[in-house]
């Protein structure tokens, strides 16, 4: 897949993983696992990018005697997910048109 496209898609995936409840790195990876393979290495720059774009915030909370970073979505992050859904409705329409004649009944 096109690298830029994939990068944008993974960004939205991560946002979706923290949409309903703040989550932490490893949990995000586990949540995405059934759908998308992601490693710590891939996740790190995504989290940083989303943070600097203010689509999520980072908070350190204590957990079992150590500090763990929790990522929480921002309103802007929620909007980004909605934009993505709208974009893809458009793409789906186009896809349906492109493959219109190819469906064998």
């Amino acid at each position: 897949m096109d690298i830029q496209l994939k990068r944008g898609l993974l960004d939205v995936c991560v946002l979706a993983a923290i949409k309903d409840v703040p989550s932490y790195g490893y949990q995000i990876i586990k949540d995405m696992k059934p759908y998308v393979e992601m490693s710590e290495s891939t996740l790190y720059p995504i989290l940083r990018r989303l943070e600097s774009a203010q689509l999520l915030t980072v908070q350190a909370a204590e957990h079992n005697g150590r500090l763990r970073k929790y990522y929480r979505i921002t309103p802007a992050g929620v909007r980004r997910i909605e934009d993505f859904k709208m974009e893809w409705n458009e793409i789906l329409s186009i896809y349906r048109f492109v493959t219109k004649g190819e469906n064998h009944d």
Partner: protein
Amino acid sequence: MTKSEFLHRLSARLQALSENDRAAALTYWSEMIDDRMEDGMSEEDAVRAVGTPAEAAAQILGEALPPEPHKPQRKRKTWEIVLLILGSPVWLSLLIAAFAVLLSVYLSVWAVVISLWASAIAVTVTGPVSLVYGISCLIGADVSGGLLYIGAAFAFVGIGLSLFALSLWSAKEICALTARLLRRKNAPLKKEKGL
């Protein structure tokens, strides 16, 4: 590899980063390893699962740009040289013509300066001549004529001196301009009339 070994190696690869950035990255990976161990993995497995320090460093430092497409330089150069030689009758003569034009323009500028000098000399010389003639008029009782020529003599000398000054100034300016142009072009053309 142990967790501390992983972090140590990772840290070594992140020397290019600022203290803050490096610390943030190390915290992140330390946490990732801890989380996996908490999930039940052994330290070895947890470290192996998060990838190699090299991979981690690569992602932290930013994706590497795809390598520049390597154009075969050699082939291009010989091809270009052959074309240049074949076309030389055309571009070489054009170049010489252009150069000749520039040179003649430059020389005509200097010609103007020289004529300024010549005028200056001519006018200034007229001064004493006019003076002498004026005095002779006075002696010959032609007062108005004499005064006219004596007055004119002063005018001639004045104008002549101004012309001298003007030609001196313009000569200096042209030399300065020439020097500047030559320095900019960097290729030493024929030594023009510069100082």
